[in-house]
């Protein structure tokens, strides 16, 4: 970084304006449905606002009115949490394994890349067909869980690669020289150092699972997850209750992001105090 501030070139202002427009483009539409979800009771799907009410939020929680919002939300939440825990643990283990070459390592690596680029609907179709043929009942906590893991593992593994590529093994050597066991080395040296990245993996995997639609389509069985429920609503609900649902789930996603960022900051601060 230059210590003396140069004058900004003209291009900076053009690019800054472009960036601002991009952010508006990202947030603008979401802002409109956020506002419209407070539409009055007689209001429609577009502006103008016909009064202001919480009517549509109330509507959301009446079971008959818009399908099973509560049930599908609970299922998505549980599924997201299971996916999150499994992804964090398994990616961390895989990350440790990949620090050394082993036979078949490139196969696993290419499987992860393949898992990332194979269109989601193919995973859905494949697992659906497999369960169909062996006559297992697809369930959100079996087939859909597996489908989601094929989506979250590659991200988890790639993040672990990035972390361990920059990880200095001399800390572990020091711990071992001081007589720490393998497990103690992981617990007291490795985990605290990679902790913030693991929270990143956790947030990534939870939100990816919580919002996943295509991979759930043929794997969820008879009970809907939230994205399937939302998708169903887009085809047969023509009231602002759709926006209310959007506002609620987006708010929930923001809550998850907030918790994740908060805990990373907390970990940083605690580390800072210890040092």
């Amino acid at each position, binding site marked *: *970084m230059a210590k003396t501030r140069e004058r900004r*070139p003209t*291009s*900076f202002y053009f*690019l800054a304006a472009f*960036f601002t427009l*991009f*952010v508006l483009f*990202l947030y603008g*539409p*979401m802002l*409109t*449905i956020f506002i419209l979800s407070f539409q009055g009771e007689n209001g429609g*799907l*577009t*502006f103008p606002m016909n009064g202001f009410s919480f009517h549509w939020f109330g509507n959301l929680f009446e079971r008959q009115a818009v399908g099973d919002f509560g049930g599908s939300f609970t299922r998505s939440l549980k599924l997201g949490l299971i996916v999150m825990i499994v992804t964090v*643990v398994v990616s961390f*283990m*895989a990350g*440790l*394994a990949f*620090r*050394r070459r*082993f036979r078949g*390592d490139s196969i*696993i690596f290419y*499987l*992860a890349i393949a*898992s*990332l*680029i194979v269109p989601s*609907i*193919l995973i859905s*179709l*494949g*697992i659906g*067909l*497999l369960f*169909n*043929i062996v006559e297992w009942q697809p369930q959100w906590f079996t087939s859909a869980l*597996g*489908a989601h893991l*094929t989506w979250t593992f590659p991200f988890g593994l790639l993040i672990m690669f990035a972390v361990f590529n920059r990880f200095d*093994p001399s800390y*572990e*050597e020091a711990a071992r020289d001081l007589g720490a066991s*393998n497990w103690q*080395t992981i617990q007291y040296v490795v985990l605290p150092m990679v902790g913030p990245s693991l929270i990143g993996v956790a*947030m990534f995997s939870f*939100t990816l699972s919580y*919002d996943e*639609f*295509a991979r759930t389509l043929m794997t969820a069985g008879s009970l809907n997850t939230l*994205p399937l429920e939302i998708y169903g609503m*887009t085809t047969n609900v023509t009231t602002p209750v*759709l926006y209310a649902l*959007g506002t609620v*789930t*987006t708010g929930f*996603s923001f809550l998850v992001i907030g918790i994740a960022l908060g805990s990373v900051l907390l970990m940083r601060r605690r580390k800072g105090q210890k040092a």
Partner: protein
Amino acid sequence: MAFDTSKRSSYFLITPMAAIFAIFLVIPLLTIVIVSFWDYDEYRILPDFILDNYSYLLGSSVTWKIYLNTLKYAALTWVFTLSIGFTVAYFLAFHVRSLTWQIVLFMLCTIPFWTSNIIRMISWIPFLGRNGLLNSALLNLGIVDQPLEFLLFSDFAVVLADVHLYTLFMVVPIFNSMMRIDRSLIEAARDAGASGFETLRSVIVPLSKPGIAIGSIFVITVVMGDFITVRLMSGGQSASVGLQISNEIGLLQYPAAAASAVVLLITVLLIVVGLLRLVDIRKEL
């Protein structure tokens, strides 16, 4: 190596991931390939070895039209996400000077990614609809006499939604590549008399190529397999390969869907292999 040096621990550590990939990725894909040769009637799928699914699929002019249409979506989305994503990443990496601001603005771009894609698609409706914000604004300003119909439920809406959803996939890897460019190279270029644009063209773009390739792989494969965006944003008036597969699934024509899936997979893999020739992903992590 600091860790337990026995190879067995590596195998132990990788087993859970390998097992999940085997059961939920490899076997299902093999199942698709096998089923694509099966027969079916209205009620069930019948084990067989026939090529009818493929001959019907590849012999139909509809298939080719759908592929053309899907490629068109992919190409348009790629052009827009790349140009927008590159510009945004360039601004963040080279024009924002403090690291804190870089992180804050970067986070600002990534937050929408953590929310539901379907909700983000729906959120265009009040904006683009016949009575939507954009049409009202254009009418009020006297730019048009009657509402523009092509805004929602059209190819325009599909590409717009794709760009909205996936530009981030370009921003992140390109930004990552740009942040690794040694700043002294830029200074050297400037000292050698290169203008800002020349530096951009002959230093920054070539060194950002890995990021560009990774972003392109992401965007193109996602759009090639997409069906929700096309269904929601085209209002059922357009088709894509993914949508065709999902329709066949809906009609329980699994072997036909499987054959379409195999062809789609081959297409996507060919595109990816082509892009991978430009970059070694594993070096970029």
